């Protein structure tokens, strides 16, 4: 790491915004292309791995709001997945919906509101976790893109290869 502790800290809001819009784009904009591509690869592996394991039900802004907070740090990808969830699962035709049992345990069935495509148990948990961790990692990446001290200089010394 370069010793540039004497130079004033520069904040790069554009790089931070780009890092949120698409994972890795912030570092690519700083000239660290390889670093950015590797961040992008890891982030997309986690995001689409989560969607593959748990289905689109893993991103749910309305029902899993607390999980969506870290997931939203993945950027527009998370909002697109939530939109797909709303369009495919929550707006499904009635024949694709199941009736949940009444919470009181009476055995009566409520009107059909639950999609047959809904994720349950471990796949849903792991899918949600994959995407939430991708978002939390992207928070660190966004901060790194904004406050990186040895940014463009490493592009010429190997860091940007």
């Amino acid at each position, binding site marked *: 790491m370069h010793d540039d502790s004497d130079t004033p800290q520069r904040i790069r809001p554009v790089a931070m915004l780009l890092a949120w819009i698409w994972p890795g784009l912030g570092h690519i904009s700083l000239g660290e292309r390889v670093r950015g591509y*590797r*961040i992008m690869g890891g982030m997309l592996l986690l995001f689409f*791995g989560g969607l593959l394991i748990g289905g*689109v039900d893993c991103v749910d802004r309305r029902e899993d709001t607390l999980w969506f907070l870290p997931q939203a740090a993945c950027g527009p990808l998370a909002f697109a997945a939530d939109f797909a969830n709303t369009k495919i699962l929550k707006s499904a035709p009635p024949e694709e919906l199941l009736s949940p049992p009444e919470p009181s345990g009476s055995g009566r069935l409520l009107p059909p509101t639950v999609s047959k495509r809904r994720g349950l148990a471990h796949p849903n948990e792991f899918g949600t976790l994959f995407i939430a961790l991708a978002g939390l990692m992207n928070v660190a990446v966004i901060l790194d893109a904004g406050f990186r001290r040895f940014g463009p200089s490493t592009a010429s010394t190997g860091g940007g290869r």
Partner: protein
Amino acid sequence: MSLLAYTPFIDPLPAAYELWWLSAIPLLFGISMIYKAYRMPVLDGYWRQVGVMTAQILVAMILFAVSLSVLVVWIVPRLPVE
């Protein structure tokens, strides 16, 4: 769920109901890829570092799981009730 009706990225992966624990490996690999990409000052030896970090966390998780199993299955049932 029928495999014929499975739509990738829309439906949950059918195999993940049984083999959910295998998903820890790509999870740790992805986290290591991101962490090492922004943390290493110079990216020489990047993939080796990613592999080492993945293996380290995986081994730590396995050791924790074995320790907890020993505690719950062997030690706790042998404790005196009163």
